[in-house]
């Protein structure tokens, strides 16, 4: 009897560990776009659940950016900044490279989606 209890508890422990590992390592969830300004989260958009394209106007005293959201991807279409780097970057659909509008301190990054990169240089 006691042996059975031990075996059961061990099996439970293994199951809990395996479950925890799977939950953490799986990364099978949808890609999520996180839009932050100066580190503060403005929007979190599950790009896997976008049914049809829409745009967002993000404005504050540092400047404005218009963001276009489509199923699976996101981009900046208009910006008040002089360099237009964020607009020129175009669409992103993975965590490879975030969109950064330095003058407006706006950052759009994609997390999740099963990417296997830890960072990008360039």
């Amino acid at each position, binding site marked *: 009897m006691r042996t059975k209890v031990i075996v059961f508890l061990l099996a439970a422990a293994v199951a809990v560990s395996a479950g925890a590992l799977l939950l953490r390592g799986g990364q099978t969830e949808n890609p999520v776009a996180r839009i*932050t300004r100066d580190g503060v989260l403005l929007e979190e958009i599950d790009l896997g659940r976008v049914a049809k394209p829409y745009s967002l106007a993000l404005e504050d005293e540092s400047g404005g950016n218009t963001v276009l959201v489509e199923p699976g991807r996101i981009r900046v279409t208009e910006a008040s900044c002089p360099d237009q780097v964020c607009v020129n970057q175009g669409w992103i*659909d993975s965590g490879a*490279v975030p969109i950064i509008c330095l003058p407006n301190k706006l950052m759009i990054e994609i997390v999740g989606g099963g990417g296997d990169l830890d960072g990008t240089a*360039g």
Partner: protein
Amino acid sequence: MRRARQVLSLLACALLLSGCQKEPVEGTTFAMDTVMSVTLYGGWDREQTKEVRDWMLGRLGWLDGLLSAVDGDGDLPTLNRAGGQPVEVSERVSELLDRALELCEITGGALDVTAYPAIKAWGFTEEEHRVPSPAELAELAAKIDYAAVEVEGESVTLPAGMEIDLGAVAKGYAGDVLAETARANDISSALLDLGQSTIVAVGGKPGGKPWRVGIVDPARPGSYFAVVELADMAMGTSGGYQRYFEQDGVRYWHILDPDTAAPARSGLSSVTVVSPSALTCDGLSTALFVMGLEEGADFWREHPELEFEAVFVTEDGGIYRTAGLEGRFSLAKGYEDREVTVLE
């Protein structure tokens, strides 16, 4: 009873094992005209790791002010305005300047910290771009000469009319400072992103595998064409696509050739350098971009003491990597059919 205790401790062990790849401590800050972020996996004391993170983010802001050529009364603006008079600078500035000048010398001036007046003339500092006339460029190029900078201890003398900017090495230096901080605080696993152009891996990932870092495709800057595995290694990329403007259909980028004071057109669209030193990565990626593929490859062959490897992408999309990246370099998904030339 004792058996039950054993079972409980076994359970606890299993739970601990499953939890040992815990969530990292992360932080982001705007510094040196870019977004920098740190990802730290510390020991059991999460609060201590958070303190290290806060110190790092604060340090980045401090280094930004210290090493900036733009801000009003810092060492570099003071030196740049001194009109040929010697200026006392802080120990860190003189130390970095010394190391930067060494890189300028070893690269034969392909890297030159005195190109600041030219960078300003093109409008890359204020993002108010213009194309200087050929006569203006000739005049600017004549005043780019790292060899004219004199450093004696903490006293620096710069000839009148010349100006220094450490932008090509500051991020790399900051990366080395942060990596040192991580190691000194027993953080054995960290990824320090100094604004994408420079990334430093402290140790490998928790669990021991190397960090996987992508290299941006210069032709499609939203994607990456290759992955480099890094453990206790830094990586830096310089590319014409990073900062540029277009006028009359011509693209002018921020990496200038010190010989011409104009954007370096060497046939390359990006250079990535992998080395234990982030400062080396940062400075050499710029220098190799200016040199071009052939001269850059020769430089790699001639300087094994710099302990670096490189990946070159040419404007026509050719990919070249040095032999030392064997086993650490792979093409990314969607790029598997691209040819990679190995430089021996």
